């Protein structure tokens, strides 16, 4: 790997795009639909136009890593989805670390193994597509960081020092090249939290993963995932974290949905709400709470909403 691993945001996204292709995430549109909506709201406030395409499917990476099927189908699906983006001449912006990791990993494999590129293109050619490898794959968090100052200037509801513990998510930090920060000691989420008026909390286990990827949340929930998450939440609670942010709806499932089970098993309540970073930015930019879909969260956000003095809006939480 001779390519640069960690690059500055200005190098990663030299020019802020007028339009982006937003890659739909299955979890982000079904389990936590507020995530997708929050991203649309923030992009709208930043003046970035969003293009989505109903022909785009799941990235198919999650079940691949669960060993449900072999890589061929995922290579073809990735090529097909990105061929759709390329037709629009746009760069791909994903908002799930899973989609990010799988799309990046699978395109990397195709670009470095001409035989796989050929195989994928042969298959999707039957459906009238051709993937050339032109579209860049970004995570929306890269754009948030690139536009940190613009976001800070647009804050209307500062977070009043809310103690936020961030969760980066592995499949972003583990990429081999062209990312904002690697798994060593990432801090760019904390910079964003500060820019919108929150107090980032560097809790001890903040780089511990959500434990839910490759299906371990289903097969090894009690054996490994719960003791693993218990460590994470215990350290977060001890450090005084009031709210946890993710940049991956998949991590959000692991961290949010598992908390009642942890409380039962370890007789210890954590009650740390977990939301997407985009939802928190939306709050700071004055997006009405009812547009953020917090009713999908297992750990309720009432405390946070009261603390920040936000209007609840019409929808129940």
């Amino acid at each position: 790997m001779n390519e640069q691993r960690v690059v500055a945001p200005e190098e990663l996204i030299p020019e802020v795009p007028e339009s982006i292709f937003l890659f739909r995430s299955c979890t982000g549109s079904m389990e936590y639909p507020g995530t997708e909506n929050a991203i649309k709201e923030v992009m709208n406030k930043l003046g970035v136009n969003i293009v989505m395409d109903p022909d785009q499917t799941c990235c198919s990476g999650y079940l691949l890593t669960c060993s449900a099927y072999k890589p061929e189908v995922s290579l073809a699906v990735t090529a097909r989805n990105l061929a759709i983006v390329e037709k629009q001449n746009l760069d791909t912006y994903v908002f799930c670390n899973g989609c990010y990791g799988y799309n990046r990993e699978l395109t990397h494999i195709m670009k470095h193994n001409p035989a796989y590129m050929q195989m994928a293109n042969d298959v999707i050619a039957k459906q009238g597509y051709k993937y050339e490898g032109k579209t860049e794959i970004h995570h929306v968090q890269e754009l948030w960081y690139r536009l940190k100052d613009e976001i800070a200037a647009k804050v209307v509801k500062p977070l009043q020092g809310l103690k936020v513990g961030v969760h980066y998510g592995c499949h972003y930090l583990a990429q081999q090249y062209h990312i904002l920060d690697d798994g060593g000691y990432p801090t760019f989420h904390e910079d964003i939290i500060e820019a919108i008026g929150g107090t980032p909390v560097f809790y001890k286990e903040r780089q511990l993963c959500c434990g839910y990827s490759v299906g371990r949340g289903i097969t090894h929930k009690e054996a490994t995932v719960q003791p693993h998450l218990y460590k994470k939440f215990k350290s977060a609670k001890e450090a005084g974290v009031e709210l946890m942010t993710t940049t991956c709806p998949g991590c959000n499932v692991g961290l949010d949905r598992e908390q009642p089970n942890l409380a039962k098993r370890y007789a210890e309540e954590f009650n740390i709400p977990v939301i997407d970073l985009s939802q928190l930015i939306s709050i700071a930019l004055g997006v009405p709470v009812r547009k953020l879909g917090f009713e999908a969260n297992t750990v309720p956000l009432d405390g946070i909403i009261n603390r920040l003095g936000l209007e609840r809006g019409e929808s129940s939480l």
Partner: protein
Amino acid sequence: MPREKYKDKIEGLYKQVDTYNLVENLETCLACGKCVGNCPVASLNPSYNPRQIISDVLSGDGDRWLDSEEIWRCFWCAGCATVCPNDIQFPLLMMQLRYRAVENNYGLKYIMPFKRFALRAREDGLTFAPSEKGREKIKRYRSNLGVSPWPEISDRAKAEYKELFDLTGATEYLNNTSDESEKPVTFKYTEGRIISE
């Protein structure tokens, strides 16, 4: 076993596991053990040891892990790859070690739940779309947000997604996945020592 000494005999042996040629540089492993130190699973289950697995796979002994419980514990967080001085993509090796285990009828219980999810995803074009009751909840949440009740995915997308499963052999693979001839997996190492061969 000092690998350098037997280099001509064992070079490239790991390709019997890395059949997709995804881990191009496993032989550059320095056995520094950073992967183990940064592994959240190893901290919970000390017998899960990425360095040991790499060492075994390199010397052509990777199959000793096939009937192990250990290989199914990896979270795929890639903490190992993040700290690896030589950028070895251990998760991609783990993926293929699991394929090899499954081919030998080990660990089928750990992939069976995903057969159902994958066959459903093949129809929906979306992964983890829940059953009818769960769908009602999604539709309600989405409607409350003022967006379409169901993610906007076209019939064409669904049909083509399904077709890609058929064209690449994934449908056949999924239909053939069964736990009928399942063989049990056990912990192979304890306190860093091999307890069964």
